[in-house]
């Protein structure tokens, strides 16, 4: 086992899901100017949905692992989108661009959803069968095939989002709204509709991350919390609202976690992450890729 290669491989495989999750958070921030603490709950919802749907499909349809996973993935993301719609309609819609108001609403949803998940799914961890078995060997580093596959899928979605934002009409509207909401409205962009789409895309990304994480980790009702905190660090470092920033930040955090856990220990690496955020914000408040607020 080549250590450096292994640590880099670890970084990439952790980072891929971080990136996906953070992209959703940063997109929602960009469009709605809200800090969505409930983002982790969408992630959890998708993973929990997978834990129900995967065994069900496998039994009912008798398909092999990959089509079952693909189908379940779609269902889980749809579940998350529906949840997102409810959360938007009964909460965020009235607190668009209100940092403090929306923050407290999102906290309300965290408590409510966390309690409901525990009530419905119980405290025991849930597991879904592996997607594909086996371990790949890359330059002496070990990684499971399913991690590798999920890495690629996550990267594909990331590129898809990039394309959406860079090339499509909706993407243009999202960017315009993120840049300057009033000007965008003067241009005839319907802000509320764009905000809803942006929010749903963000939820969808959290859902995708959760669904990808489902075969890799123990599915619990509180698994989103850790990702949420990491994602905050990531988008601060990358720059709030910045898509390239979230991608870069995701891999930076994954690298610190991977190398820091090795050379110090995991607990210290966690502190290092927070310290990094503070130092980073002092040196460059707008993040690596963010624009200065003017």
């Amino acid at each position, binding site marked *: 086992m080549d250590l450096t290669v292994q640590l880099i491989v670890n970084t990439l495989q952790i980072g891929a899901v971080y990136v996906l999750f953070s992209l959703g958070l940063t997109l929602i921030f960009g469009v709605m100017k809200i800090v969505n603490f409930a983002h982790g709950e969408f992630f959890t919802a998708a993973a929990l949905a997978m834990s129900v749907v995967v065994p069900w499909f496998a039994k009912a349809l008798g398909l092999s692992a990959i089509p079952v996973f693909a189908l379940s993935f779609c269902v889980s993301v749809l579940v998350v989108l529906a949840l997102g719609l409810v959360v938007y309609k009964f909460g965020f819609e009235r607190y668009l661009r209100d940092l403090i108001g929306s923050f407290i609403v999102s906290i309300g949803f965290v*408590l409510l959803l966390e309690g409901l998940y525990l009530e419905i799914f119980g405290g025991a961890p849930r597991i879904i069968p592996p997607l594909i078995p086996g371990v790949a060997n890359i330059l002496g580093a070990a990684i499971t095939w399913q991690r590798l596959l999920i890495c690629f899928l996550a990267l594909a979605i990331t590129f898809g989002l990039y394309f959406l934002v860079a090339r499509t009409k909706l993407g243009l509207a999202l960017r315009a709204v993120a840049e300057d909401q009033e000007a965008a409205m003067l241009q005839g962009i319907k802000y509320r509709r764009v905000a809803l789409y942006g929010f749903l895309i963000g939820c969808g990304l959290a859902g995708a991350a959760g669904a990808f994480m489902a075969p890799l980790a123990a599915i619990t009702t509180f698994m989103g919390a850790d990702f949420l905190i990491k994602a905050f660090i990531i988008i*601060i470092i990358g720059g709030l609202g910045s898509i390239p920033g979230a991608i870069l930040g995701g891999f930076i955090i994954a690298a610190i976690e991977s190398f820091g856990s090795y050379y110090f220990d995991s607990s210290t690496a966690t*502190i290092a992450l927070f*310290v990094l955020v503070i130092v980073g914000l002092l040196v460059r408040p707008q993040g690596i890729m963010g624009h200065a607020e003017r």
Partner: protein
Amino acid sequence: MPRDRRIYIASALLLCVGVAAALIVRDDYTVKLMLWIATSALLAACLRFVLLIGELNIATAAFYGIGAYTAGVITTIFNGPLVLAMLAAAVVAGLVAAVFGFITLRVKGPYFLLISFAFTEVVRLKYTQSNIIGGNSGMIGIFPPVAIEPYYPAIMIAIIGLVLIGLYAIERSPLGMLFKAIKSNDQIVLSVGISVLVVKVICVVIASAALGLGGALYAHSNNVISPGDFGFLLSVFVLAYVKIGGEEHMVGALLGAAFLTLLGQYLMGVGAHERIFFGGAIIIAMLVMPQGLTGLALQLGRRLGWATPAASLGQHK
């Protein structure tokens, strides 16, 4: 100004009633309930104090914790007197806040929110790694001196009440006006020759010193403190107090603290459902009364003709 005087007189009376109640009531649980409401109210008032400059200070929990730990270290490890512990807690929290504020208040809005969040987590994780203060198990045996123990709840309510009145007085002073001006338009404040950064730091230092003192009081009434008590979730709940009470006026923070503390106690027996109800209550409150309890009360009052819009709370003069 007469309205202000009435508020001071009313709060002084309320304070006397609270202190008297703490002395008279024999039921420990009721006394504790009063103390929880008092500490919640102090936390809410301090979080709201920084909201006056437009910043959401998640580090409210951190400064409260710094006060609690400072006081705990002084009375249990060094056997220092309680008064010294309280003073030191306020001073240490204030000093740390000065450094923290001077560095971080250059950023604002979501950046400040998130940096204060990160600061809170770093402080909490540092406690867990420090053996001398008990690591994750926390510090135990933080008691007030035996002689004053029977009066401690009354003393605590008196101090917290005075701090709250003090915070209100500052809010109504020219300094408080500056806070409001900074929240609304910091450029104009700069243009008349006032350093916005310095004013913001003063604001955070005042709030943090009050929090430090509150933390010291809390530590001695709870007798046990642990790192988990001062995580960012505490600030989040305190924000809920402020928001549900109504942030327009300091009374809102107090109302919200009392309301949610009592609700929390009532819901305690509901067990795992507690979170569901608490979360649901926050969401519903935000939907039906965006101005909080005080806003709702004012609206009702207006509809019934009790108050005219001109007399609405929170307006100066």
